[in-house]
């Protein structure tokens, strides 16, 4: 009896792990952690980015999950509200890594918050795909696991300067931008590039990111009489600046603002939105032919069907971040951070977002080197305001509207 009992117990103990293995296999998950700005200045753009992440997750899970070595892994998100604050990002990413045991990380939205999250992700050796962050400085600080999906900030205004110069070769420029890491980086690059193109800068000023009264700056713009205004920041200040420029009849012939005009909400400004251009990471009308994943038109259609709003580049960037991570995991055939990193370092692919390739130079590891910035403009078509791609000319869907009506 004793021997039989011991034999049965041994058999049970041997069989037990197999039972667990079966149940674990049915629930293989990859945990991706990130923070969302549900409140604060980054709320509008962050929400759009999350829409892109979630559409990707739903598509992947509907197709059975990410397949590695014969096993299927479902994607699960763990998210928190960072309130658009760096201090919260710091706490929450630490929590995502240590307590929630995230396998991979997506970034928050906006260069400032991403710089903070990057410190934490690098300290812990976690792969982070950054979307919604164009500032290039983050990648020059020495990193191994950061990968940027967006084109860097330096490229933002190149197209706008070229487009303006094509309309007026000796145009004068006013640079009026928000005092945050992304806008300052993009404006600094524009300063150099304007000089290279012999475009004179007649006003060069930054304003606090939470500014709501632009009348003093607009009076300065009227005094300086520039042909073009370049700058802005994120959604709240960009939309306010555009509105007040229109109300105060600043008379600028060309306006390029970061971020804000790309949001579908910008159309609520009505006539104040007409003619405003925005450097854009993506537009629904682009004709990239993807190596994998949906086409731009297909993505736009399904995003619209799910959220009842057209996708702007924030959402497309989010979706692309997911696609690229998925591809790298599949190529690596493993969830091991080192193997996935090696796969990411090697990729040169085209998705609905455009071409993606990361710098592997240690001085700028992770910087996006293959993706292009396009220029969109709000124009009236049959009486309705809509965004058209106007630059580069090879991708344009409509001629440039100049000067502003």
């Amino acid at each position: 009896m004793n021997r039989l009992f011991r034999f049965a117990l041994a058999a049970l103990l041997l069989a037990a792990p197999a039972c667990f293995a079966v149940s674990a296999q049915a629930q293989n998950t990859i945990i991706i952690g990130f923070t969302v700005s549900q409140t604060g200045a980054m709320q509008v753009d962050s929400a759009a980015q999350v829409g892109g992440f979630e559409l990707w997750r739903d598509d992947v899970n509907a197709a059975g999950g990410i397949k590695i070595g014969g096993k299927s892994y479902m994607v699960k998100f763990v998210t928190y509200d960072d309130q658009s604050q760096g201090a919260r990002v710091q706490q929450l990413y630490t929590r995502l890594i240590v307590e929630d045991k995230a396998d991979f990380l997506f970034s928050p939205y906006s260069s400032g918050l991403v710089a903070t999250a990057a410190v934490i992700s690098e300290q812990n050796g976690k792969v982070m795909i950054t979307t919604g962050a164009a500032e290039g400085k983050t990648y020059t600080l020495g990193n191994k696991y950061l990968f940027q999906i967006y084109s860097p900030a330096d490229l933002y205004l190149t197209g706008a300067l070229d487009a303006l110069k094509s309309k007026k070769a000796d145009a004068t420029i006013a640079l009026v931008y928000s005092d945050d890491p992304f806008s300052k980086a993009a404006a600094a690059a524009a300063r150099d590039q304007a000089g290279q193109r012999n475009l004179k800068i007649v006003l060069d000023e930054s304003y606090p990111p939470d500014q709501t009264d632009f009348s003093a700056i607009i009076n300065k713009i009227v005094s300086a009489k520039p042909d073009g205004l370049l700058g802005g920041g994120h959604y709240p200040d960009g939309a306010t600046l555009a509105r007040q420029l229109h109300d105060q009849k600043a008379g600028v012939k060309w306006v390029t603002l970061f971020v804000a005009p790309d949001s579908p909400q910008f159309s609520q400004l009505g006539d104040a939105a007409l003619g405003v251009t925005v450097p854009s990471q993506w537009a629904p009308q682009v004709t990239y032919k993807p190596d994998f994943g949906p086409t731009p038109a297909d993505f736009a259609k399904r995003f619209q069907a799910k959220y009842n709003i057209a996708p702007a580049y924030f959402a497309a960037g989010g979706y692309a971040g997911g696609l690229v991570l998925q591809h790298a995991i599949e190529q690596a055939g493993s969830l091991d951070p080192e193997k996935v990193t090696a796969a990411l370092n090697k990729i040169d692919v085209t998705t609905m977002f455009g071409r993606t390739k990361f710098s592997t130079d240690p001085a700028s590891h992770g910087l996006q080197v293959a993706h292009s910035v396009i220029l969109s403009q709000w124009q009236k078509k049959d009486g309705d305001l809509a965004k058209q791609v106007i630059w580069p000319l090879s991708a344009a869907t409509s001629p440039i509207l100049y000067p502003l009506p």
Partner: protein
Amino acid sequence: MLGLLASIVDGILVGTVYGMAAMGLTLIWGVMNVINLSHGALIVAGMFGLFLLSQAFGLSPYLSVVPMLVVGFVGGVALYWIAVHRTIGRPPLMSLLSTFAVNMMLIGLGTAIWGTSLFNVEVSLPGLSFGGYTFPGTHLMAAALTCVIAVLLYGFLQYTKPGKAIRAVSGNREAAELVGIPTRRVLAMAFGLGAALACVSGTLIATMFPFTVLAGSSYQLKSFVVTVLGGLGNPAGALLGGIALGLVEGLATPFMPVSWTSIIEFALFIVVLIAFPRGLFSFIFKRS
């Protein structure tokens, strides 16, 4: 030159509205020696009041001023009885903490309902153009309404019985009690009046600029600066202080980056605190 003039005029226009925001703060301070730290929250209440009234009833923004005055007054009186009444005459820290707590509760409530996103009330009013520079119609209208309200307030304080009672209590509470003025009710009324002014200034600011639930703190800070410029307890001084602050902003901005204006404002604040502790305008209007 024209640019400088435009800047000064616009600075004065907006400064008048800051002056009205400060009038509420200085009235409460002067009458009952209470620094109302929920002043910012009351301004935000005025902003969201305008938002709700224009959304729900499609009311013209300038007609909303009257209901907001009433709501602000009633809210202020309620606030007085709940949070301020028992702290009168006690150590100043008590009223500071009490009004601060009210501020936190109101802001918390606002954040829970509306989040911290930017709200905007569309008000289109033709502006006044002058050699390329345009003064937005909303700035002109807000400044004009502020002047009307300031005149009405002055008339109320100088010529009506409740107004005189307020001035009596702020001068000497015991003496006012002795002549039969119901000082507790007068204090409640004064707080209500101060709150109403803060609310209406928020409403007028909302017609000019977009706002968030957290926007009150920067206007509260400006109100402190203006209150010190104008002299404590001196509503007329507060209005003039607001205009002076607007003037300084208008003079400074054409010559330096816009981000420097806060530095100028607070440097002025410190200078006035040291050199003119009773305010720039205390020598014009005697406290009666």
